[in-house]
């Protein structure tokens, strides 16, 4: 199956429903759509934040995400995948990033979205800085995210790249 894939890195907001609709419109083989939206929370480790700023590595960010999207398309029977990740300053309540996966059946759509989120959290070259009362602080990577990403490496495919 050839999977339609879209990856965009942008500062502008996005429209999850419109992105999902682009992948399903006019076809009757799509039975399951999973979307994930990551939203800027108003706190970091329990402390309030005024905003977060996302720095990224232009060029590498696209490449890394496209590589994982291709990996997801190889692992699961997917009709379409769209990933959009924003950069720049983002206020609490605003969207940070989104993943849409479309498949004929739900298991593939869920697994691929979950897989992509784990990898985006740990491998895509983005860095979050939050604005707290006492200044700007770089968010520290969470061990739980690395562990979650580790769930998918049993095939060994990703070990070589690490």
């Amino acid at each position, binding site marked *: 199956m050839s999977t339609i894939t879209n990856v965009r890195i942008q500062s502008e907001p996005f429209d999850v429903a419109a992105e999902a609709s682009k992948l399903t419109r006019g076809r009757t083989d799509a039975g399951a759509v999973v979307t994930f939206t990551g939203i800027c929370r108003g706190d970091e480790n329990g402390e309030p934040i005024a905003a977060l700023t996302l720095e990224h590595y232009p060029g*590498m960010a696209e490449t890394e995400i496209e590589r994982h999207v291709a990996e997801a398309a190889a692992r699961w029977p997917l009709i379409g995948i769209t990933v959009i990740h924003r950069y720049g300053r983002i206020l609490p309540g605003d969207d940070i990033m989104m993943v849409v996966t479309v498949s004929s059946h739900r298991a593939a759509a869920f697994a691929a979205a979950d897989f992509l989120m784990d990898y985006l959290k740990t491998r895509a*070259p983005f*860095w979050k800085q939050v604005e707290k009362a006492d200044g700007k602080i770089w968010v520290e990577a969470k061990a739980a995210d690395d562990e979650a990403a580790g769930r998918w490496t049993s095939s060994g495919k990703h070990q070589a790249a690490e």
Partner: protein
Amino acid sequence: MSKTLKVRYFAWVRERVGKPDEDVQVPAGVVTVGDLMTWLASRGEEYAHAFENPKVIRAAIDRAHVKPQASIGGAAEIAFFPPMTGG
């Protein structure tokens, strides 16, 4: 014999070094990514601060993740950054 490399820094590595990127002349003895970090750390206080704990710093050669043991032989661009926190 030395080699010119573009080095890029992101997040707090960039802040500590004080610049987003630079072209450096790498001495002949610097073979791996780890060697390059050690050599960069010797270039001044801001570099020493940025690379004081090389274990927490990640690297990419030509926009692909690499380990510290990776050779910088064919590299055009090397980037150093903290663990990623996107998503």
